[in-house]
């Protein structure tokens, strides 16, 4: 006998309680989604809507009644009757410690302003581990003309690996290597990008939340102290190279394109591009050279 064929299971609404408020949410949603419904801001570092959750940073943890340990809001699905605390002493403690542990080992200065907001919300003081605390500081890797890798800024959120792998690019030029505090993002035997499988799609740059991966143009301008986001504007356009129709956001400063992104929620790209759309903009600004 053959088994019945399901044509899409109807989604149920579930009732859960978050910080004492009852809320109706759709089955299959994560706790993070449910918190969003109530307007509760949840810190996240390794989560991105276009990537498979890896739940490794643990900054999003919440307390669920009946669970011995805290659970990651970004990946745990809601269950009927779940009682969730997002601001208990335990939750605040772990969120604070995660931010402190990261802040004490990684240069987080280029993280988005909201990250710094969470730092102050949870009272994170990374310096309290003392001046001798080991860090991941290391020289910037500049081995090609398109983008640089500054792993002193890497929080090991796995996003670049996912974007380079099955979640977008399927190139697998980079992976996580080593173990424990020595774990790091690397090509095979740490070879330079030109020797690796990298095709310079820049999708890893697109998802990196810390500035560890950066356009060479941006890196050079920051070195020269000419990078100034206040002087930049964004021009939206469609990539001229092929017929796919990827939307481009050209970041322009002083009438030069300084980097290219694509919106995460764009139906064609989900934020991902190829090397032409991402880096093939030099011809636009070769004024008078021929």
């Amino acid at each position: 006998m053959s088994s019945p064929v399901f044509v899409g299971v109807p989604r149920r609404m579930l009732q859960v309680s978050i910080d004492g408020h009852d809320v109706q949410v759709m089955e299959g949603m994560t706790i993070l989604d449910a918190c969003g419904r109530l307007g509760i801001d949840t810190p996240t570092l390794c989560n991105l809507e276009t990537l498979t959750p890896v739940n490794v940073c643990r900054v999003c943890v919440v307390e669920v009644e009946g669970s011995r340990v805290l659970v990651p809001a970004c990946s745990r699905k809601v269950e009927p009757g779940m009682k969730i605390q997002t601001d208990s002493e335990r939750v605040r403690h772990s969120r604070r410690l995660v931010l402190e542990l990261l802040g004490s080992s990684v240069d987080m200065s280029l993280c988005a302003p909201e990250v710094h907001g969470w730092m102050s919300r949870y009272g994170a003081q990374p310096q309290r581990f003392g001046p001798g605390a080991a860090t991941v500081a290391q020289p910037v890797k500049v081995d090609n003309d398109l983008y640089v890798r500054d792993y002193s800024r890497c929080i090991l959120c796995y996003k670049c690996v996912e974007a380079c792998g099955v979640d977008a690019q399927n190139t697998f030029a980079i992976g996580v290597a080593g173990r424990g505090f020595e774990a790091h993002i690397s090509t095979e035997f740490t070879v330079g990008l030109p020797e690796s499988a990298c095709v310079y799609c820049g999708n890893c740059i697109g998802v990196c939340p810390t500035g560890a991966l950066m356009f060479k143009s941006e890196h050079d301008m920051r070195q020269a102290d000419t990078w100034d986001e206040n002087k930049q504007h964004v021009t939206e356009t469609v990539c001229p190279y092929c017929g796919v129709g990827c939307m481009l956001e050209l970041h322009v400063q002083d009438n030069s394109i300084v980097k290219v992104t694509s919106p995460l929620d764009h139906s064609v790209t989900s934020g991902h591009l190829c090397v032409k759309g991402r880096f093939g903009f030099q011809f636009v600004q070769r004024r008078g050279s021929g």
Partner: protein
Amino acid sequence: MDIRTTGGPPTAAEIAAVDAVLGPPESLWEGGTRVAADDHLARGGRAVRSKRDLLLPVLHGLQDEVGWISRGGLEYACRRLNVPPAEAYGVASFYDRFALDEQPGLSVAVCDDVACKCAGADDLCRELEARFGPAGSAREGAVWHRSPCLGLCDRAPAARVERTGPSGHHAEGRLAPASTDGVIALLGGGVWPVEGEAYSPPALRATSPRGGEEIKLLRRVGHVDPQSIDAYRAAGGFAALRRALELGPEAVIRELTDAKLLGRGGAAFLTGRKWDAVARAPVRPHHLVCNADESEPGTFKDRVLMEGDPFAIIEAMTIAAVATGCERGYLYVRTEYPLARHRIENAVRLAREHGYLGDDVAGSGLRFDIEVRRGAGAYICGEETALFNSIEGKRGEPRNKPPFPVQAGLFGKPTLVNNVETLVNVLDIVSEGGAAFAATGTPDSTGTRLFCLSGHVQRAGVYEVLMGTTLRALIDMAGGLREGRSLRAVLLGGAAGSFVTEAQLDVPLSFEGTRAIGATLGSGAVMVLDDSADLEGILLRIARFFRHESCGQCVPCRVGTKRQEEILNRLLVDRQTSNRDGDVALLADIAQAMRDASICGLGQTAASAIQSAVIQLKVLNV
């Protein structure tokens, strides 16, 4: 996906090592010679991708025969398996066993973990340092390293030796107890330790004392030839399997449920419930995994079972497979246990030859077979989901739960994973009935338990006692402390466990009994420390252990274990006293976040022994 390899050609030895595992390549695509069809079609695809789980066996082949994993060797393996080099590098660099730079052909790993420390391992290491330079520095074709617990704590101090080279030359052995002269002679090219005889029955009996009156799990160990299936059968072997086939899956699971058997691997989950969940899982196929990774410091009971009674494990796995509908079983054994691995492999081969494994298990028409997989030096791979990833050829990073293994485990399929000792219990439960089993031990912790006694006791070894026996009685059974010594503490449950004091010695050794005093039975490790123990050194070793073994995936554990070690070093080695109270508070803060927010049990317990030493033993008080 294109495999881009730019590292130059592999050597003949590397090709031979990889091909020995995978067979010769069939086409240019896999790194072979050009055949006519290569120009016209792309080979590989799913058939090659499905071999991804052979990555670790291939890396072992390279390590065994070449002594390290070069870029050319790794990339050849990648072409053969269609694995991207960056990913394979990530895997190889995860495991302690795989060297990514050239290594001398002879290596000695000296255990400097808790039990070996109690037996003078630090002196041994000091002498080696003086003679051969610091650990890790190669000299005259040989190198020595420090190692976490080798599971030989009953014969501390222990060392493991390995000689790499083309097949036939590769060999592994151990020195236990290791003398300074012995290690020095070996590093200088001396006699290879002969292992075989050391495991003749009387020797095994001598190193594995028996315990109380209730000897069940150990009854064949040291009495029945572990290499002979006839001897096993003559001792009643395979009767439980026949009984299980008569009873049928549901009745077997009922007996197990009635027995109230709790898992012996550390998490103490009801075995019957787990079997039932797998048996009922609608998704097929189901997989079976026997967890023989045993890497918790101070634990060696599974080794004694595998070395001394391997057929029992094969029989129990077969019963589990029959009851839960598995056709494939894996036994994942830590690489530091070569003798156990060989004994198990031999038992699997003989069982297959005698029709207990294969397409028609004991004439039942059911199909089941076992593959032995070798760990590669990573404590975390004892965690069940990390173990699945390791078998699948990936980094041993634990997965987030849910989903649980019974829903989605090995290769994403419903998986039954049990510890070696848990499985061996199944034989008597099936033969004698669950109710009879449940009548022994305590109401909530039924049956007997294997305890691994080590450290400052007169007769270290594995002891089998009824659940509920007191810690005091157990230590007495092992001959108590040495003359003139007093007890400092007992580390119960290994590095992931906690310290118990003299005042708590009457704790009944049961899951509920230890829980009542805030301790845990864990893996059954009982490390006894007398007043001569270097407690501070032991705490530093435990902190180093967790920092080294953290998989590095989640922030609380990756950075927390690092900070925990730094702060302890500050307090205990540098003797910084300026902010002592602040540092003690900081340790407690890190401990709470690791316990609450880590992904897996490693991070969740990485501070437990240290915190218990701070609270119970007041080590950081001035």
